[in-house]
């Protein structure tokens, strides 16, 4: 009985392991959680779930599996904080769910089904996995996840190269790379640490002590050095909005990993391509600009510059003055990119789009050209390569 429950949990995306199931069984053998259903529920949750993010999923599986005892478990179906659901709804689909979604059939079949469903459906719909609406796993609708989905009437993405109503979404292969959690990213970013000794001397300097002791004829002469601190400085420029919406989650992860890893981290946002102004707070992007020139003046050239963006735009946005989609830019994006990379010789561009897709977009090639090939995919190996590039000023290492 518990094995089936365990498998159900796994398929619902709760990352429980066999060891944890064994622990639960061991606990039951010790007579814990026998007296009441509630006790059993708490015990099972304590053993199997190791992150509060998965509490909701656990609750749902638990409720579904132990049906028939509904009166005992009635209290389980209480409301959860809306922000948890929101997270799960928008971007927490698991691998299994994605596979399931993919299994709905090929493109042609999808079109057929869509026709049928359009005839069936009369009302507006949100969530769920069948009807056309928003934020669901149905292949039809907007803002949801389905690798072969059809976007119906979503006009929020004005900067995609093709704004069609029936466009095929292209992220079927986005997630089959290495899955990056913040922990993995932090481990990758750790390489960028640069230690320097600063402040009060608190550590024993062994070689100096031995040396000084030998010089003073065997009398102990202790030498101390200051502790090591991470002094690397990072300037992070993030592309936001438009085609970057698909990558919000990975970029957030990268950002939060960088946030906790570097003491000296400055970040600014740009849209598609950096021009004469950047902004720090996305909510006030139209009011509070910081001039790019000012940024270059404020942060010295020992900062390492990291762009994060998908570099997917119309080529005009890079090469022509006035090409920006948002405002009239006096100088072309290319000029600004060159200025930035001159000001910060240690730079890299991290692209959340899979590397295999880069060649399809001319703007990626142009930016690669401007940046001397220092564009890296947002995967573990890509980050490693990017960090190697950040440590040197010369030609890229690939």
């Amino acid at each position, binding site marked *: 009985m518990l094995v089936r429950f365990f498998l159900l949990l796994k398929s619902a995306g709760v990352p429980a392991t066999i060891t944890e199931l064994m*622990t639960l069984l061991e606990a039951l053998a*010790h007579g*814990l959680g026998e007296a009441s259903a509630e006790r059993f529920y708490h015990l099972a949750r304590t053993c199997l779930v190791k992150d509060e993010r998965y509490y909701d999923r656990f609750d749902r599986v638990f409720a579904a599996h132990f049906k028939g005892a509904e009166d005992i478990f009635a209290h389980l179906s209480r409301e959860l904080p809306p922000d948890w659901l929101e997270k799960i709804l928008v971007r927490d689909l698991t691998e299994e769910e994605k596979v399931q979604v993919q299994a709905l059939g090929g493109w042609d079949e999808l079109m057929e089904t869509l026709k049928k469903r359009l005839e069936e459906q009369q009302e507006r719909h949100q969530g769920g996995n069948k009807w056309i609406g928003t934020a669901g796993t149905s292949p039809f609708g907007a803002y949801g996840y389905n690798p072969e989905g059809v976007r119906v009437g979503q006009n929020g993405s004005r900067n995609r190269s093709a704004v069609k109503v029936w466009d095929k979404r292209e992220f079927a292969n986005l997630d089959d790379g290495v899955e990056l959690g913040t922990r993995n990213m932090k481990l990758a970013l750790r390489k960028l640490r640069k230690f320097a000794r600063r402040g009060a001397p608190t550590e*024993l300097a062994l070689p100096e002590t031995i040396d000084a002791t030998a010089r003073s004829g065997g009398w102990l002469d202790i030498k101390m050095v200051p502790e090591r601190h991470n002094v690397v400085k990072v300037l992070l420029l993030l592309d936001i909005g438009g085609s970057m919406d698909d990558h919000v989650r990975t970029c957030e992860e990268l950002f939060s990993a960088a946030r906790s890893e570097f003491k000296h981290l400055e970040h600014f946002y740009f849209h598609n391509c950096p021009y004469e102004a950047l902004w720090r707070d996305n909510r006030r992007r139209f009011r509070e600009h910081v001039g790019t020139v000012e940024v270059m003046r404020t942060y010295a050239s020992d900062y390492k510059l990291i762009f994060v963006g998908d570099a997917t735009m119309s080529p005009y946005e890079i090469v022509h003055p006035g090409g920006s989609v948002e405002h009239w830019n006096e100088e072309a994006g290319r000029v600004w990119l060159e200025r930035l990379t001159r000001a910060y010789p240690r730079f890299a561009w991290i692209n959340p789009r899979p590397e295999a897709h880069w060649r399809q977009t001319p703007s990626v090639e142009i930016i690669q050209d401007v940046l001397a090939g220092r564009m890296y995919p947002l995967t573990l190996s890509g980050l490693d390569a990017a960090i190697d590039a950040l440590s040197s000023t010369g030609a890229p290492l690939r």
Partner: protein
Amino acid sequence: MAAVNAAMVLSRPLLIKGEPGTGKTLLAAEIARSLGKPLYEWHIKSTTKAQQGLYEYDAVSRLRDSQLGDPRVKDIRNYIIKGSLWEAFECEVHPVLLIDEIDKADIEFPNDLLRELDRMEFFVYETRETICARHRSVIIITSNNEKELPDAFLRRCFFHYIRFPDEDTMTRIVDVHFPGLKRELLREALTTFFKVRETPGLKKKPTTSELLDWIKLLLAEDIPPEALRSDDSKKLIPPLYGALLKNEQDVHLFEQLLFLNRRNAR
């Protein structure tokens, strides 16, 4: 609580998460007190190494003693300083060990403790001996989610998330801390408190410990309950808000929201 019982019976570490100020650390003290067992605390800082919880070898003072001809120098044991984990392992009764704020340490820290927590033993390199725990201790680990913990570590722990208490529970909590508190004051304080907590976009939401601090302040200043219902008074934000709101952006945001509400109400 089921989680604590399970952790005690199977003697596995119990990982406690929850918003800051919901009493994670106090739980360990409470367990030790109710069991009548000694409590060993190990507070983690960003510079803490796993080794420091086991023992430290003070080579410098041994070197110094050797120069001064101190007889203690013959025995290396005199220079090994036991950490809180060692002390807990050596304890005669089942001790309670608190590893506080494990997420503050370096990202590799939990991995360095895997064997020690799993087998409850470790090897002292300097004296070539293995220290085994006499009794498997109850280990309570707290985390504020500042860093994600590695899976291998999580697998060895039990996990419990302390939910933020609702209004009824909160009333009971306050009752325990301030018996004989005036009913109206408590009601007004709680209303204000939950109103502040519900303000969207606060950087740091006030929690239980902040509420208790605030009530303590209100009592010390002898503020009447009416002052909290500041609908008609000129002051927009609650008195002594410094105990609840901890940065100037939050205070500013809260003021703005109250101002808007007031205007809409008219």
